[in-house]
C-alpha cells in the first residue's frame, strides 16, 4: 500500500516536473552510537555496550508553480544489533495544493498537534516509529486526504485516513526491550477491515489574544496497541491489539511575557472504560542570564491518565516532570535540556538529557541520555531498568 502510494506520487511528480522549477534536494545522513552501560536484563537482548547504526533521510521538493508542491521524504536506518531497527519508511510523499485561505494535501503526510513537552497526548494522526526512538517523536508517514481552511473563525483541519500504520517495535535482541517478543505479524484489529479501516479526524484551532486553542476529534483505530501475552506456535509472544476508539482532545497554550502555560487533555472511549487524561504545566524563561546571551527555562508538567487495565499501558498515569532548558543563542545554536520524570505512585524516577550543537557548517551533534535513578520493584519499568542509554548522533545535512 505504502509502496503503491509512493510510486503513484512519483508518477505525478514525473509528469509535472517537466514544467516545474528545479527539484530542491536536502536532507541528512547520520551516524549514531547508542551506549548501554549496563548489561541487558533479558538473555535474548544484545550485550554490546556500543551499538552503532547509520540513517539516511533525503528530502525532495518540487514547486510546480505558486500552488502545487510535491514532497518526497524516504527514511532508512541500518542497525548493527537490532534487525527490526534496520528499517525504512516513507515519511512523506504528498501533493499539496495551496489556494491561500485553503489547502489540500494528498498522500503520505505528517502532522503535529499539541503544546506539551513531556507527553504528546492529543497528537494522534501519525503512528509512532517506536523502534526509531522511545521518545515517541519519530513518526511513520500517514496516508491522508487533508483539507485545511483558514477562516475568520479559526482554522479547520479535516482528515480522511484510508490506511492504518502499525507501530514498530524492537526485536527481541533490541534495547530497550520487553521480556517477550512483540509479534507484529500477528497484530489483531478490532475493525473487520483491519488496516484498511478508514479513520476520520477534525481539528479546529484559533487564537484569542494570548491564548492558542485547539479542539480535535478522532474516530478510528487507536494508534496505541494493547500488548496481549499470547501462546504462539513458537512460544509465548506479545500480540498488538488495535482497538477502535473515539477521542476528543483539547490543547491550550497561554503565552504571557516570560510564561508559557500549557494544557493538553483528552477523553477517549473504546479501550476499557471511557477515560480522561491530561498534561498541565508551564515553562518560565529567564532571558540573558548572568549577563550572557543564554536563556534559561524552567519547566514543570503534571501528567494524569485515568485509563484502566483494559487500555494500553501508559507510563504517564500520575507523574510529575521537572526540567531545565538552556539555549546559549550562540553561533552554533547550542541547546541543553534536562528533565526528571517522577512517578508519584511508586517513585520510579527517570532522568533525561538532550544536547544539540552545530559542530561545523552542515554538521550537527546530538547527545541524548536516559537514565533510571530509581525503579520500583512492581513498576513496569523494571523491564527497562538496565536499559540506561546514551545516544550520540552526528548528522551531516545537505
Amino acid at each position: 500500500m505504502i509502496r503503491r502510494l509512493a510510486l503513484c506520487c512519483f508518477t505525478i511528480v514525473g509528469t509535472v516536473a517537466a514544467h516545474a522549477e528545479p527539484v530542491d534536494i536536502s536532507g541528512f545522513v547520520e551516524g549514531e552510537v547508542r551506549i548501554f552501560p549496563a548489561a541487558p536484563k533479558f538473555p535474548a537482548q544484545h550485550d554490546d555496550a556500543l551499538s552503532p547504526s547509520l540513517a539516511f533521510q533525503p528530502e525532495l521538493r518540487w514547486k510546480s508553480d505558486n500552488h502545487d508542491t510535491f514532497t518526497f521524504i524516504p527514511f532508512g536506518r541500518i542497525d548493527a544489533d537490532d534487525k527490526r531497527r534496520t528499517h525504512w519508511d516513507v515519511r512523506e510523499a504528498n501533493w499539496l495544493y495551496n489556494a491561500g485561505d485553503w489547502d489540500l494535501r494528498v498522500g503520505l503526510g505528517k502532522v503535529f498537534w499539541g503544546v506539551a513537552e513531556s507527553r504528546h497526548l492529543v497528537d494522534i494522526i501519525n503512528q509512532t516509529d517506536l523502534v526509531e526512538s522511545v521518545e515517541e517523536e519519530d513518526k511513520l508517514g500517514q496516508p491522508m486526504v487533508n483539507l485545511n481552511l483558514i477562516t475568520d473563525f479559526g482554522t479547520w483541519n479535516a482528515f480522511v485516513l484510508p490506511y492504518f500504520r502499525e507501530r514498530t517495535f524492537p526485536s527481541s535482541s533490541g534495547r530497550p526491550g520487553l521480556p517477550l517478543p512483540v509479534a507484529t505479524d500477528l497484530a489483531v484489529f478490532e475493525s473487520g477491515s483491519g488496516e484498511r479501516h478508514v479513520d476520520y479526524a477534525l481539528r479546529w484551532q484559533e487564537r484569542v489574544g494570548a491564548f492558542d486553542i485547539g479542539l480535535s476529534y478522532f474516530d478510528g483505530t487507536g494508534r496505541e496497541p494493547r500488548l496481549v501475552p499470547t501462546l504462539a506456535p513458537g512460544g509465548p509472544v506479545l500480540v498488538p491489539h488495535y482497538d477502535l476508539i473515539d477521542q476528543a482532545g483539547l490543547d491550550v497554550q497561554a503565552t504571557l511575557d516570560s510564561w508559557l502555560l500549557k494544557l493538553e487533555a483528552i477523553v477517549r472511549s473504546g479501550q476499557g472504560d471511557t477515560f480522561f487524561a491530561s498534561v498541565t504545566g508551564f515553562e518560565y524563561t529567564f532571558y540573558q542570564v548572568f549577563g550572557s546571551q543564554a536563556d534559561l527555562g524552567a519547566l514543570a508538567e503534571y501528567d494524569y491518565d485515568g485509563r484502566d487495565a483494559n487500555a494500553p499501558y501508559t507510563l504517564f498515569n500520575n507523574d510529575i516532570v521537572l526540567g531545565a532548558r538552556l539555549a546559549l543563542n550562540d553561533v552554533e545554536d547550542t541547546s541543553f535540556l534536562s528533565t526528571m520524570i517522577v512517578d508519584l505512585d511508586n517513585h520510579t524516577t527517570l532522568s533525561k538529557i538532550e544536547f544539540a550543537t552545530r559542530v561545523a557548517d552542515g554538521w550537527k551533534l546530538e547527545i541524548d541520555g536516559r537514565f533510571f535513578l530509581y525503579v520500583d520493584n512492581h513498576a513496569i519499568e523494571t523491564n527497562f531498568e538496565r536499559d540506561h542509554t546514551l545516544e550520540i548522533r552526528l548528522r551531516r545535512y545537505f
Partner: protein
Amino acid sequence: MRKLILALVVAALPLAARAESPEEKGLMIAKEAQRRDEGWVDSKVDAKMVLENKQGEKSERNMRIRALEVTSDVDGDKSLVYFLSPPDVQGTALLSFTHFTASDDQWLYLPALKRVKRIASANKSGSFVGSEFAFEDLLAQEVPRFTYKYLRDEPCPTDEAKTLSCFVVERKPAYEHSGYSRQIGWMDNKDYLLRKIEFFDRKSEHSKTLLFTNYRQYLGKFWRAQKLVMENHLTGKKTTLQFGDFQLNATVDQSEFDPDALSRLR
C-alpha cells in the same frame, strides 16, 4: 517701562508657543520619516547574514523575509522570516505580529517535528540566531514604539551621505523588555533615511553601532538600505546583513501571515 516689558512679553508669547521642544521635534522627524515610507503594502526580499567573531571567523545564514504593512492605531507590521540555511535549520520559520503597546506575538515553526510553537513575547533583547542583532532590532520600528528627543544637526556619518546633513535624535523604547536604555539615530534631512544608530544597553554603555548603507530607491519612492552592519563594541563581534532586490507591493499572499499556514511554506 512696564508697558514695554508687557509688550515684549506679549510679542514673545506666540514665538514661545511656536518653538518646538526637542521632544516634539524628535517626534516630528520620526513621523515624517514614517509618512514618506507609507504605502509599500508588502515586501519580499532574500537576505544573507554573515556573523563574524573577533578572530574574523565567519558563519552564514540565508533567509527569505516577507513583510506586510499594517495601517492601524494599535498594530504594527507583520513579518515572516524563512530560513534557507544553515542546512540544519532549513525550513524553520519565524512569524511576528507587532503591536504598539501590547506584547508582540511570535510563532516558530520547526519543520522536523512539523510543530508550530508560540514563543514568549518577552524575548525582545535576545540575540537573533546568534547574531549581533537582537529580535527588537529587526521588528517593525513603528513611531509609537519609542519616545524621541531631537539633539542636534551634524554632517551625516556614512560615506555615501557625507555631503548631507543629519538630524541626531535620541529615542527610548516605550515597549517592555527592551535591552536598551536609549538609542541615538542619525537621519539625513533630505530623504529622512537612517544612516546610523548607536545602541546603549541597560547599563547605559554604548554597546553596539549599526550602519545603514547602499541605499536604493524602489518604485520611485521607497528607499531601502541594501547593507546593514552591526558592530558589538563589548565583544568585538560583527554581523552584516546584505539584502537582495526588494520586491515591494508585490502582492504577497496575506494568508501566509498565519501561524496555521507555516507548515506549507516549504
